[in-house]
Structures are given as C-alpha cells and as structure tokens.
C-alpha cells in the first residue's frame, strides 16, 4: 500500500507520434507509474502520414492503427479516447475535461499537435472546404472526390503536397493555388521557388499563383449539375473542382493551456529539455516552440522523426533525465534526378 501511494501519474495529452512515443518511453523507464493518454480522437494512435491511402481505396480504420488495442493493455497505458481537455491548472496539477471530470497528474506532457491552419481571411469559407488532418476528415474527403475528380488544393504545405502525389498517382486532377504557405514547413528562398514550382508541375500538379490572380475572393458551392466548388479570384478568374482542400500548415492546439500558468507564444514555449514554464509540465511535437541556442529564438521542429524523438526525450526528462533537444531530421527540400520534388518530411517508418 505504501508503494502504491508513491506511484506517479504521468498524463500525456495527445495520442499522435509524440504522445504515443512518450507513453512508451515512460512505461519503459518507470514500470510502476500510471501512464494515461488523453486524446480527442476516437481511434487509437494511427499515423497521419498514412492517410493519403484513403484515395487508394483503403478506408477501414483498422488498417491505419499503429498498434492493436492489446498493445496498450499489455503495457498498462490507459488511453482515454474522445476526451476533450477543457483546461489545465498547473498550480493544482489538475486537468479538467470538457464533461467536468478532473484528473490529477504528477507530470504532464502536452503533445496535442497542431490542427490545420486556415488563414483568417478564408475562415468564413471553412464549411466549404475539406480538411485532411484526421482519419475521419480523410475518409470524408475521399468520399466526395469522384474517380479522376478534380481537387483544388489551397496553400500546399508538405502534408498537402504529399497527398497531391497520391492524387496524381491515382489519376485525379490536382490544381494547387500556391501562396506563402506552399512548401511549409520548409523555408524556401525567393530564388528557389520557381524551380520548386516547376518540379511540382513536372509531377503532374497544375499550379496557379494566388497572388497573380489578386488572391482568393471567395469559395462557393456549385449549383446542381455544376462542379461542387468554385474558387473565385479577385481578378475575376475562377476554378471549378470537386473539392477544395486547405493545406496552410499547422496551428498548435494550445487553447486548453491558456490560463494554465505556462508560457505560450504561438505554441507552448519550452527550454531545450522540453520543459514548459509550468512546474512538472512538458511539451513535445508540433505543439511546442523550443528555444534554440543556435538560432537565438524559439522555433518549431517538424517531421515525423523529430516529433518522435521529442516524445522520447520529453519522457526521458520527465523520468529523471536532463538532456537537451537535438534535431534528428534533415529539413532540406530538394529536387531529385527525375526532376521531382523530394522532402525529408515525406519519409516515415
């Protein structure tokens, strides 16, 4: 009984790459601890890099799971699905779920990731867009785009361009409305951009520069018998397609951390050991901005390998370590010898 009293409760918010890796490491390093994952998702951990497969006919959710349910049971990792965190009180070390349940924690790892960002000027058209950030959204999008249908892709971050490769491969037509977020999170120099756009075109993606058309004026639903969507530009030109899919990069999911006592700029601010300014609270993955001594600024690190390494590092530091973050992923976008775009962010296991 004495031992049970000393058992620590590690709570992880988020069941993506960072959260799942962290839970695994926490269990390995502290076999007696309670480990709980809180996730908004109704599914256990699946890899979002697999989601383009829905356009190849894979729609069964079981095909996407990284591990079977037994994996969590055997490792005594309690995964609470469909759990929306309403708030975190850092001083009381308490998480409040949307249905008012309170969960006490000894340490908290926030690995809630990011949601697809939609620029505020396009926010009013959100209901007419098909995002692609979760399994449910991916299946919905795949259901509305017919065979050889036409997808209008806005923004064109690397998640979207990964999907574009699959869409072209599966004989869909893809028109990219390019803008400042194209190639996100790669930082592309102005003189590199034309070559990269040409590489995209070489891959079969049609490209329209939004700025050349004065920007997007509106997105509209097509009348019966016409294409499902129309994108109207400010210069009066227009595009018709079966779906409009936004890919403008990610926006960290941190709303529930407001008022928690942790510092936030765009993401949760963490030191190189991934500690937030809240006692016992860590962050990993797309949700955190890590202080970089080299760059002298807080910055995000993206990519599957980086995110997994962050989850692992945070768990090690939660359980007594004090190691600094070192990126593990190359971030260079390049064109291969076939003239096609290649990104390290597209590589995953």
């Amino acid at each position, binding site marked *: 009984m004495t031992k049970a009293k000393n058992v620590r409760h590690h709570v992880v918010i988020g069941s993506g790459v960072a959260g799942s890796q962290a839970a695994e490491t926490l269990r390995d390093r502290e076999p007696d601890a309670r480990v709980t994952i809180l996730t908004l998702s109704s599914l256990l951990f699946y890899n979002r890099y697999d989601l383009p497969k829905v356009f190849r006919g894979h729609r069964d959710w079981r095909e996407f799971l990284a591990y079977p349910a037994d994996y969590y049971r055997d490792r005594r990792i309690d995964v609470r699905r469909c759990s929306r965190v309403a708030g975190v009180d850092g001083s009381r070390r308490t998480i409040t779920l949307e249905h008012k349940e309170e969960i006490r924690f000894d340490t908290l790892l926030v690995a809630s990731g990011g949601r697809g960002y939609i620029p505020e*000027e396009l926010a009013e058209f959100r209901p007419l867009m098909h995002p692609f950030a979760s399994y449910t959204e991916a299946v919905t999008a795949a259901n509305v785009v017919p065979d050889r249908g036409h997808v209008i892709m806005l923004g064109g971050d690397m998640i979207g361009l990964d999907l574009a490769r699959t869409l072209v491969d599966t004989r869909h037509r893809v028109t990219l409305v390019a803008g400042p977020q194209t190639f996100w999170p790669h930082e592309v120099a102005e003189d590199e951009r034309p070559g990269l756009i040409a590489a995209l075109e070489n891959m079969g993606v049609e490209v329209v520069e939004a700025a050349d058309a004065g920007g997007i004026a509106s997105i509209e639903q097509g009348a019966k018998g016409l294409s499902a969507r129309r994108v109207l530009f*400010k210069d009066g030109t227009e595009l018709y397609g079966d779906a409009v899919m936004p890919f403008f990069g990610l926006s960290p999911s941190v709303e529930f951390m407001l008022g928690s006592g942790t510092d936030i700029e*765009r993401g949760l601010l963490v030191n190189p050991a991934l500690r937030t300014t809240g006692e016992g609270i860590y962050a990993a993955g797309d949700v955190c901005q890590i202080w970089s001594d080299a760059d*002298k*600024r807080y910055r995000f690190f993206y990519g599957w390998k980086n995110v997994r390494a962050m989850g692992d590092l945070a768990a090690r530091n939660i359980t007594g370590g004090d190691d600094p973050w070192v990126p593990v992923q190359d971030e260079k976008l390049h064109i291969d010898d076939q003239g096609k775009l290649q990104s390290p962010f597209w590589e995953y296991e």
Partner: protein
Amino acid sequence: MGDIKPPSNAPGTPAAEQREYLSDDPRDIGWVKQNVPCQTACPAGTNVPVYIREIIERQFGRSYETNREANVLPGILGRICSRPCESQCRHGWPGNGEPVAICHLKRVAADLKDAGHRITERLYSPTGKRVAIVGAGPAGVAAAHDLSLLGHDVVIFEREERAGGMLRYGIPEFRLPRDTLDIELHNALRLGVQMRTGAEIGNGEGQIPMAKLEQDFDAVLLATGCMAASPLPLQGDWEKRELRGLEGVEYGLDFLVQMHRGVKKVVGKRVAVVGAGFTALDCARVAARLGAQEVTIHIRTAEEYIPVTQEEIFEAKREGVRIKGLRTPVGLTAEGNRLTGIEFVQNRLGGWRAGGRRQAIPIEGSEFIEPCDTIIIAIGQQTVNDFLGTRLELDRWGNVRVGEDGMTSHKGIFAAGDYVNGASTVIQAVGHGRQVAKRIDAWLMGRERRKQVVRIVPVEQPLRERAFDFIPRQHMPTAPLDERMKDGAHEVELGLDDKLAFEEAKRCYLCNLRYQIDVDRCIFCRACIEVAPRNCIKLVRGVEVNDDGAYGKLLETKEWNQVGAIWIDNNECIRCGQCFKACPVQCISISRCELTEVEV
C-alpha cells in the same frame, strides 16, 4: 441615514407582500460589488444585468437609458469599448463557458431603440456656477454632461475643429461610424453646454490663456487626454536620433489624427507596426486599407497578453494583418534618409508587471532584421502640459497629480481622464470624467448632492431557465472582406439583430438577483442541494463579515451538528432558479439588487 429604512422583507415573506426599498447598508452595497462582477469592473459602473434584462424584454429604449445613466455614450462604447466587464463575467469563469457579449448587447440597445426615442435626464435647477472644460474627448464630454445636468453653466474649449477627441481623431471610422459619434455627442451636450471648437488654450497668439479661464469660471477641468505619441526607445546609434525626419517613419497617434483631419496618408508596400494596443491594431488595419501589401504588428510578448479583444485580433488577421511576437525593436536600418528595415532583439517572457501586463526580457545576441518600408510606432501616448502656463504638480510619468477631490495642486483646477491616468481606455475616461464632475459639483456647492444606495426589489420567481446556460455566445456578424476594404469608412461589425440579441441576452446570469434562504423556515430537506447544478448551496457554521461590513468567507461544515444555516453561495450561484423551484416550503426568496444614486 434615518430616512432609508428597509421594510419587513424578511426572507420567506411572500413576494406579494414584499416591497421595493433603498438601502445604504454596507452589506448590501458590498453584496452588489462582490456579486455583480461586470458592473464592478466597469469604470463607469454600468448596470449591466438590468440593461441586458431589458433587452430580453425587448425594451431597447429603456435599456439604452439604463446604460446612459452610467455612460452617456452607449452607442459608441457598444462598438469600441475595451470590455473590462467581459473578462470578469461570471459566465466566463472556469467551467461556465464564454462570457456574455456585454459590449455587443450595449450596441443592441443603441441600435434597436425606436427612432425618436425619448431621452431621460434628471435636471437640477441652475446654480449660477460656471465651469470651463478643456478638451472635448470622452472624459470632457462625460463631465460636461453631468455638470450641466447638475445645473452648472459649462463651456468646452476644444482645439480641433470638431468635438470627440480621440473618439473622432484616434479611432478609424470602420470601427466607429461618425454618424453614431455625432448623434451621441450631440445628445450629451445639448443641455446648454457651449462647445467652442478651434479654441486652443495656451499663451501663444490666438490662444486662450489658462489665467483667463480661471478668471472667467468658478472651476476649470483639464481633460486634454494623452495626445503626444511616445518615442520609440532604440539603442546604439539610433538611441538619440530624431526619427521624425526619416522617410517611412510614422507615429501611430499622429498618423491617425492627421488622417482624420483630412490629410491624405500614404504607406509603403511592407508596413511594420510596433505596439500592442488598440492604436497599433487600428494603424495596421488602416495601412491595409491604404493598400499595403504586407502589414505586420510586432509585439514584445505574445498575442495572449496584449490588451485588445480577441475579436479585434481576428478581424485584423482576416484583413491580412499578421502578428509576430517576442521581439523588441532596438534599431532601424536605412538607405540614406529612407527606412529599409527594423532591427529587433528576440525576447523571452518574464514575470508580470504592475497593471497585469507581461514582461518581455531581451535575449542578448539574438538581434535580427525585418525589412520594411514603413514603420508605424504605436507604443503609447503621453500628456502634453506646455499649454498650461500654470505650474501644476506632476507625477513621475508626467501626468498631472490630483487629490481625492479630483483637484490639481492649483485651487479650482481639476483634471480627469487620460490627462490624469495616462493613456487608458474610453470607458475609463468616461468613468473618470463622471467621478470628477461629481467632485467638482461637491466643491462648488459645498456638499455632496448625490450618494450611492442599493435599490432592492422583490422578484416573484426566477427570471432564467437552466436551458439558457447552454446557449453558445452569439457571434458578431461582420461585413464581407471585399466590401470593408473598399474604403476606410465601411463599418466592419454589423451589430446583432433582434434574434441574435435575444439569444445572447438570455445567456446573462442576471447576477444582480440575490437568492436567500430563510433559515427559520428551512426544514433542511436538502431538496435544493440535490437539484443544484453547481456547488452553490452550502452547509455553513457561520459567515465572516468583511471590514466594509459586507458578508465574506463562508465557514463551511459537513457536520450536521455544527450547521448553523444552509446558505446560497451567490459567488457560485448561476441564478438558474432550480433551488427556488424545488423548495417544498418556499423558504427561498429572490430580490434584485442594483446600485443607484439618490439625492442627499
């Protein structure tokens, strides 16, 4: 105060037998201040629950008048208020959801009242006293209105061509339409206030010396606001350099004032705004309307900590404005006399400054440059005192120092608004203007003529339903982007219509309703506790009494043999009325408690 006696409205007395009464008991005044957080947070003391209740009853004109009792400019504040009330709203407390859209509802009262609506004013007979007010901004106008009601002859001296101060010259039309401004200023000043525009106080040619005002008037109120832009503190070679002559450098306040005087303003393609308040946001949005292709607001801390509303931030972003945080400007870059960029240093967040703002701590060696061709500096405003010709004591920030009675170090000269408090908000200026007007009146008349009491009105039954607690906050409809960006005058927020207003108004908890249990009649059946949606009904040993006489901390107990009473914790109570409906012996009473003023 022997003339204010409560009737025998003991809790449990049938509502039909209870009577409305006025109370100056500090426990009642303290109760309102503790339990109606929105009203307490409002610098003007606006009676929020009452005006929202009147909107539910679709009495828009009455709601407007309720507003006007505290704040003479409801249609204006309903558009541009900084909303200190909403951050305190009980509906926004953890677990209760989002705060009520109090500000939008204020605008509803102004917009939806009948055309030809009758304004109510409580006029006093003429006193023969004359008061000069310098400055026709919100503090000056609010003070002029109240002083004229109190029977004094008021003359406002305003250096600009039109009245309104920062309202007219500092706030863009897309946030505050000028017809709304004109109507409310006119209504505020129509009771005989003389407005002398283009009248500058000072000792120069064509100016009116302060000494002349002191000679001609019984009292002078200085309400000239903060009309000088604060300089940008830079480092190195830029530390002592005058920036005004550099091409591409604008000061935010000057930029807006000149534009509203009719000067055609031009900005570059890439505009950087430095600052974190409403002025910075306004400058950025104006720059976007003037054709800038890229507008970025650079802030020292982070979006979460800047003193503007989330709705304003969202609308600015919709218009293409970007916000970048954790940076402090330390220098500029220029080619010849033309600005080419800003040198920043990266910050980290520090502790909290006095006043609730977050500190930013620069990180050594982290300097970087952001290119731009226009910088708009909007980091604050300062007072200007050189017009006085009379030496007044100033505080360490250069603001004029006033005593408890609102008087400066010079007898008969009072000061109000930003001129005293430094750059603040319109509602703070209005509230302070009214406070000082009351003190001027007391000084002129030799006594206070009005005092604060609580009007306590029995209420027969709960005025809310539990279902109202689940209504989401109603969003403000806004003009489409292509329409609003056509010119600088197209109002962005369109106002809630009758239907949206009704839904939003129902969300208000009506915190001015006081639920009480008559312990003598309570049978301790726990029925009220069983139905309570929150931990709002408590078993207590007793209740502490605060220094001001108001009830304080509840001394809770779980031991039945120690229970002195079942007590409704009005702090937790969301006025759902479930306990009232469940009580089998009707020992719970409801009364509406509202602060008001009566003649002494």
